[in-house]
């Protein structure tokens, strides 16, 4: 059960049970809907972008503790970041999933997901929200 504990750390369960930024904006926002067709997980991510900066982020969706806690953390972490910084965080997150020794001093909760690396079948759960973020950033750039 040691590795399981690595996977389901207290921080993760906290984000799963008390999700941050769960919901939808009433105002216009960049919206990305992404599915994980192999397992049925779904996320709808919304970003409010102003002047190249993520002012606010929310999400709705359904999925396991890993995918939903990851979405909770991601939305928390990107607030106040420029699109450039948010994109860099997303690639740092990919490195974390590949087992590299990277850090998130700007939002340490994310490091709790490092244990997912030992569960290859679950990496796609953790990356779903971050893939939605990348897609949202790309769409925002094309449109502006």
């Amino acid at each position: 059960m040691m590795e399981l504990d690595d996977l389901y750390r207290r921080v993760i369960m906290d984000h799963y049970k008390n999700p941050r930024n769960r919901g939808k904006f009433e105002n216009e926002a960049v919206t990305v809907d992404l599915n994980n067709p192999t397992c049925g997980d779904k996320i709808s991510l919304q970003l409010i972008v102003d002047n190249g900066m993520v002012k606010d982020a929310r999400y709705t969706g359904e999925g396991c503790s890993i995918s939903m806690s990851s979405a909770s953390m991601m939305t928390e972490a990107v607030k106040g970041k420029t699109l450039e910084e948010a994109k860099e965080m997303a690639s740092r997150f990919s490195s974390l999933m590949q087992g590299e020794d990277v850090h998130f001093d700007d939002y340490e909760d994310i490091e709790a997901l490092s244990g997912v690396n030992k569960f290859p079948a679950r990496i796609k759960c953790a990356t779903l929200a971050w893939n939605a973020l990348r897609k949202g950033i790309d769409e925002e750039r094309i449109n502006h």
Partner: protein
Amino acid sequence: MNRDILEQFPILNQEINGHPLVYLDNAATSQKPLAVIEAVKRYYEHDNANVHRGVHTLGSRATDAYEGAREKVAKFINAKSTKEIIFTRGTTTALNLVASSFGRSICQEGDEIVLTPLEHHSNLIPWQQVAKATGATLKYVKLQEDGSVTLAEVEKVVTEKTKIIAMGYVSNVMGVVNPVKEVAELAHRHGAYMVVDGAQSTPHMKIDVQNLDCDFYAFSGHKMCGPTGIGVLYGKKALLESMEPVEFGGEMIDDVGLYDSSWKELPWKFEGGTPIIAGAVGLAAAIDFLEEIGMDQIEEHEQKLAKYAIERLSEIEGLKLYGPRVRKVGLVTFNLGDVHPHDVATVLDASGVAIRAGHHCCQPLMRWLEASATARASFYLYNTEQDVDRLISALIQTKEYFG
């Protein structure tokens, strides 16, 4: 079932995450007995050649092995003739063949294709595509509260416009056995054709296509102890004869000119390219293996396991079981409170118990169940009551873990 059977499956004799493996994902694919592994190995070590063309000895041996497998399959499902047995890559390819060739040729605008919400994506999307291409409409049978299909509900949607009824014999999620024999009779009364997805039935019960009187019947080798990559489409001879091939190339031709060609006779006109010879050899060995144990014995064993599993699962507070309480097949689908099934499957895997979590290639059915995903344990001839006990204790652990 006894210890001797377990010894036939070397893969089951291993530890996963420090615990003896309990494999309960048989509806996805079954494990392979030594007899099958050895048959494939022996074929490659002694008989391998291409079929239907070599004059040399190996060519004859390979052809005999491949066509011998066809005879075995024909007997196994009681087809009238080997001409009615088409080897395919699996159930998906077999159903696509019926839809693309037969479905598109007989459906016209305004015609109807009848399905159930239980269908696996492979018995759903091919018909959606037929409907889009021909202008036919899809109609769905209403399910009972426990997820089963009744003849009365099928009768309500079948009209004189119905051309095809396509239905799984056994649902891979609900574990229900559908009344396909009665539905086939109903279809024929309305001048429609009956297509049966036999992926989840053929491994677990005796199949007699003449008795069912279905027009087409599809199944996979890998769910019944055979190798992956081999499957079967059974079709009534007259219908197969009227159909155009969907794959063109070597092996399937009679005469080829610069501007026109003609096809071989049945069943070869549907088997373009070098076929899955070793797969067919493995499937034949799997049939021998299953018949030696006895299909009736396998069915009885699984029913007992399902009964025991449902009893034990019902003891777990907060566990939601889907489908009817009484099962004819060894398959149980459930959710453990609000713990997501992926999390359940991961914690179970840490205890060496392999189950499936997700939508099981049945997204419309998941919507009907109002679940985004479910967990499923599916049994086969080598599973035991001890395996069920291991599942139960791992589930109790999971519940405690997620508190």
